[in-house]
Structure formats: structure tokens, C-alpha cells
């Protein structure tokens, strides 16, 4: 298998390009999608022409329009520039896309739309209107699938699968991951939605995490190894459906659980994972669980201060050590 390195942004673009070549029903919509601030869709207009549509600034509108196009035979991939802006589009996503099929009694009503929720996460003073991690908000809605890749390999495999899925899929992207490089085979592949992945095997503690925080967890695991703690890093990849089996299997093996995410702690992804383990695997735990998450605060629009409100490597290390 030919190995080469691609960035996360390039990997998503390659996934989009491959699928668009195969299926002319796929169209891209979003603000500034032709040149694209994130570079993800840059250059696709040259190959796919009017299938790449710059929309007006109207997140609710173009997200709703994508639902209409999806219902009637297209397969739109929408970019919402920041998770913060999904709150404008929340009705189109969570009330319409998620529920349309059910309300119409199933049958031929399908909403094969992908919402690429770009620019997630806090960095460089992006602040509380361009830097929130809101993926937990949407895991509350049956009818949606929610994925968040942490590596270029996973990003390409999951965007392709998201496009092929007949259900609405939220595909989150982290602004600090776009430039991260990783091995992506040239051969075609897809990854299933709903499967977590052990990114580092270990026997002493499970760190369940995803996205940019995955990389912090891997660093934390490296530091912990030097202190004799062998951490398993479980990359969730899919937040709805959640791979309960993988979580329980890992906790069964390690007996300890720490969750790590960038979003705020209350009602977060970690809360859900901990609840799953409490309900279905409490007997596996030999220590209290720990949740490392964004602070219960507002993200300051300050490059000096914004990393204080999101988990750092040392926060994960500290949380693990607290239960040993």
C-alpha cells in the first residue's frame, strides 16, 4: 500500500473530490466555499464548477436549503464555518434534518446531507463566538449522526462514509487539526460511522477522547508511561452513535476511566461516556471516574488567555494520577 502524508485539510478535500467524481448528486454549499478560509474545499470549483456554491451569510437558510435538496435527490455537503454559527442553523439541523424522515413516516423521505462543521475549537484568541466546541449539543438529537475525526486518515475515511450515508451526518473539524499531517493511503477506503479506535493500547487506565484533545491525550499517555502508568487512549471518532462496546471493553480491561474533551463539562460528551459506564459497566471500575473538559466559563477572545479554559496535556496527566 502506497504510503504518503497528507494534512487533515487535504485529506478531507481528497475524500470530497473522490466522492464528487463518482456521484454527480453531491454538491457543496457554504460561505466562501470556493476559496475557503479553511482551505478544505479550495480548488474544487475548478473541477466541479457550479456544484460548488458560495452561499450568502445565512446559516439557517442554506442549511435548510440543503435539507430540501437532500430530500429531492441531491447529496449536499454543507460547510458551516464555525460551530458557533450552528446555533443559527440549529432548527434546520436538529428540528428539520434530524426529524424529517420520521415525521413523514419514512419511506422515500431521506435526508442524505452532511454538515461539515468547520473551525471547531479554541485557538489564537478566536474566542467564544469562533472557538466553541459544541459537538455535545447535537448528540442529544436522535436522527442525527455526529462524527469528529482526529487524524487525516480518519477524516478522509469518515467524510466519505458520511457522504454515502442516507442520514444527516454532522462532520466536525477542528481548526488546529487542519495542518496536522498523517499517513493516508492512496488506495480508496472508507471507515464505518459508530466505531471508536484504540489509538494507543494500554492496561492501566482508559482515556476516552477525540479530535484535537486526542493528540493531547497521546502526549499525556507518553508522559504517564515514564511514570509507570500504561494508558489506553480510545479515540471515539463517532459521538452519535457512540461505540459503547469499545468504551466498555476498554474500561473492563483497565478498570479506570478518564474522559477528555474541549467542550464544557456539564452535559458534555464525557458526561455521556461516564453515564454509559455507570449504567452498564460500573462493576469494571476500581476508582472514581474523572472528566477533563472545558472550563465552566466563557472562552476569552485572547490569544494569551484562551488555552486556560481548554484542557491541556498536564490537566489530563493530573486527572489520571488523581485516580492512582
Amino acid at each position: 500500500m502506497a504510503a504518503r502524508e497528507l494534512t487533515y485539510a487535504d485529506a478531507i478535500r481528497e475524500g470530497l473530490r473522490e466522492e464528487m467524481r463518482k456521484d454527480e448528486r453531491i454538491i457543496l454549499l457554504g460561505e466562501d466555499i470556493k476559496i475557503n478560509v479553511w482551505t478544505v474545499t479550495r480548488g474544487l470549483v475548478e473541477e466541479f464548477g457550479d456544484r460548488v456554491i458560495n452561499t450568502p451569510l445565512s446559516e439557517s437558510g442554506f442549511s435548510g436549503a440543503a435539507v430540501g435538496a437532500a430530500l429531492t435527490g441531491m447529496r449536499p455537503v454543507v460547510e458551516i464555518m464555525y460551530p458557533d454559527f450552528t446555533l443559527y442553523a440549529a432548527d434546520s439541523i436538529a428540528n428539520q434534518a434530524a426529524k424529517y424522515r420520521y415525521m413523514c413516516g419514512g419511506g422515500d423521505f431521506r435526508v442524505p446531507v452532511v454538515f461539515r462543521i468547520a473551525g471547531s475549537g479554541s485557538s489564537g484568541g478566536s474566542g467564544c463566538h469562533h472557538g466553541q466546541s459544541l459537538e455535545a449539543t447535537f448528540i442529544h438529537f436522535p436522527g442525527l449522526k455526529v462524527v469528529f475525526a482526529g487524524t487525516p486518515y480518519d477524516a478522509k475515511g469518515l467524510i466519505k462514509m458520511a457522504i454515502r450515508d442516507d442520514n444527516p451526518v454532522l462532520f466536525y473539524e477542528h481548526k488546529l487539526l487542519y495542518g496536522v499531517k498523517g499517513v493516508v493511503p492512496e488506495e480508496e477506503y472508507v471507515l464505518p460511522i459508530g466505531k471508536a479506535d484504540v489509538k494507543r493500547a494500554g492496561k492501566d487506565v482508559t482515556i476516552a477522547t477525540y479530535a484535537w484533545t486526542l493528540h493531547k491525550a497521546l502526549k499525556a499517555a507518553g508522559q504517564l508511561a515514564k511514570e509507570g502508568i500504561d494508558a489506553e487512549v480510545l479515540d471515539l471518532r463517532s459521538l452519535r452513535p457512540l461505540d459503547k462496546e469499545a468504551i466498555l471493553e476498554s474500561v473492563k480491561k483497565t478498570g479506570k476511566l478518564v474522559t477528555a474533551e474541549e467542550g464544557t463539562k456539564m452535559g458534555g460528551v464525557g458526561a455521556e461516556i461516564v453515564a454509559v459506564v455507570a449504567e452498564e459497566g460500573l462493576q469494571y471500575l476500581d476508582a472514581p471516574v474523572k472528566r477533563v473538559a472545558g472550563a465552566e466559563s466563557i472562552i476569552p477572545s485572547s490569544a494569551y488567555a484562551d488555552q486556560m479554559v481548554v484542557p491541556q496535556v498536564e490537566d489530563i496527566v493530573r486527572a489520571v494520577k488523581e485516580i492512582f
Partner: protein
Amino acid sequence: MAKADQETVSKIYRNMVLVRLFDDKVDGLVASGVHITQHSTRGQEATTVAACAALKTTDYVMPYHRGWGWAIGKGMDPKILMAEVMGKRTGCCAGKGGVHIADWSLRIMGRPGVQAAHIPIGAGVGLSIKFRKTNEVVLVFFGDGASNEGNVHEGMNLAAVWKAPVVFICENNLYALFTPNVETTSVKNIADRAQGYGIPGVVVDGNDALAVYDAVQQAVQRARSGLGPTFIESKTYRLSGHTSMDRFHLGGYRPKEEVEEWEKKDPILRLRQRIIELKMATEAELNRVDEEARQEIEEAEKFGKESPYPTREEIFQDVYVD
């Protein structure tokens, strides 16, 4: 300009009567304790029924909450409609949509419960038609209340900038729930807002079925020929309350005299008179149509009542495509 031919006028009349009798039937059922959510069509049968008469079966309708005119107008069997609003598995949405009526075979694209959510969805259906080059059109119905939602602005701008084959039809019945729209709406003619999107804005007498048909027919032709959306405002009035729970609509938030004035403009009586004037049918023939419609609605009630509810298992199906 295509004026309605005799066959079309007959169909419009028949469907308007069906809608009226359907509402009468639901009124009775609700009064007898059957749980049905009803936003009565009474007084507004002309617009949605006549508008749908200007469509082909393959054209799309994005309905809204008021009434059943768009459902029966687009060809839905009252039996299927009745079963659905009663929550039965023989309904068009398997008993899970209730008043949120949809039917893929009739291209009735689902009625959202959130006001104006469907305006951009309709724009997207229009975009899809353009990509698929199928030469269909989509009618998007909404009320004066929803006209103030941000989604109307976003959806109309999208449809206009895409020159999508969309016809927006706003039924202005003067009240949003219990609030008169003079308290909430900055313009007298909501269709004036069409100017802001560079599309034609047309005001039509919404209680004149044939005038509605003509206006919609023109807008549909314009959309089909690639010239983009039209915004039609239909001036009308609901003769019933907002829902069957509305106890204030007679002399509460609106004067009785106003309701009585509009009773005189009843769109069914007006069309009946017009048909007789045009010698398209005799009074006796129309009475026969009324009687047939009455029987059809009786059968719908029977079918709805006799149909089973969905099973518990079915209630939990269709959340995802398997």
C-alpha cells in the same frame, strides 16, 4: 395567460367542498372527544386548493400549518388524511406525523411544526430541480405570521439568487394566533417585500379561487421557464379560530362584525355563484357534487376510525434509514 378550464374549475370546487366538509367533520370529532390537532381551513379553502390545481403531480408542495387545502388540493385521499390526523398506521405518515402531513407520491414534502422552517427547504427543493433539470416547480405556502421569521428572508434571497423554480404563497388572514398583524407587521402588503429580493410581488384576492388560480398559473409558468421565484400574497380570512381550542375568535381578539363581513365573502359560495354564472354547471349538479363529497368524508371518518394504530415497534421505526 391560462384561465381555468371547466375541468379545472370543477376540480377546484369539488376539492374546496371536500376541505370544508373535512373541517366540519373534524370539528365534530374534536367536540366528541377525539384528539385531533386542527388548524381549520374554514374561509381559506380557495388559495391552497386553487394554487395546487395549477400544478402537475410531479410538482412539489411545501405545506404549512393552516388547514388541509394543500393536501386535498394536491390529490390526497381524505381517508388517508383522516387516518393520519387520527394517528393511525394507514395514514400518509404511518400515524407518526399527525397534522404534519407528507406524501412522497404526491410530492407533498412534509409540513414542519416550526413556522417558516420550510421556506429555505423549499428554496433547496428548487435548487435540486435545477440541478436535476426536471422542470418541476415547488409551491411554498406560509401565513402572515410566519412572514416575519428570519427564515423567510434567508429562503427568499436564496431562491431569488439561484433563480430557483419556487412560488411563495403567503396567506394573509390578518391574525397570527390571537394577534392582529397590524401589531406585528410593518407593511400592509407583505408582497411588497418581494422587491427586496428582486422578484415579482403579487397581491391576489384569496377568497376568489379563479383569481388565485390565474396568479399561481402565471407564477408557475414563470418559474418553469427559468425566470425564478414569485411572491404571491393572498388576502383572506379564517372564519374559525386558530385551533379548535381557540375560544376567543368571535368577539374576543376580533370583532364579530368583522367575522360576519368575511362570512359574506365565503370562497365556496363565491365560486359556486361564479360557476353558475359561467354556466359551467347547474345548481342541481353542484348539489350532487356536494353530496358526493359528503359521502366521501363519511367514508374517510369510517376508514380513520376503523384503522389500527401503529404498533409500538413501528412507533420507533424510521428514526434513521437502515
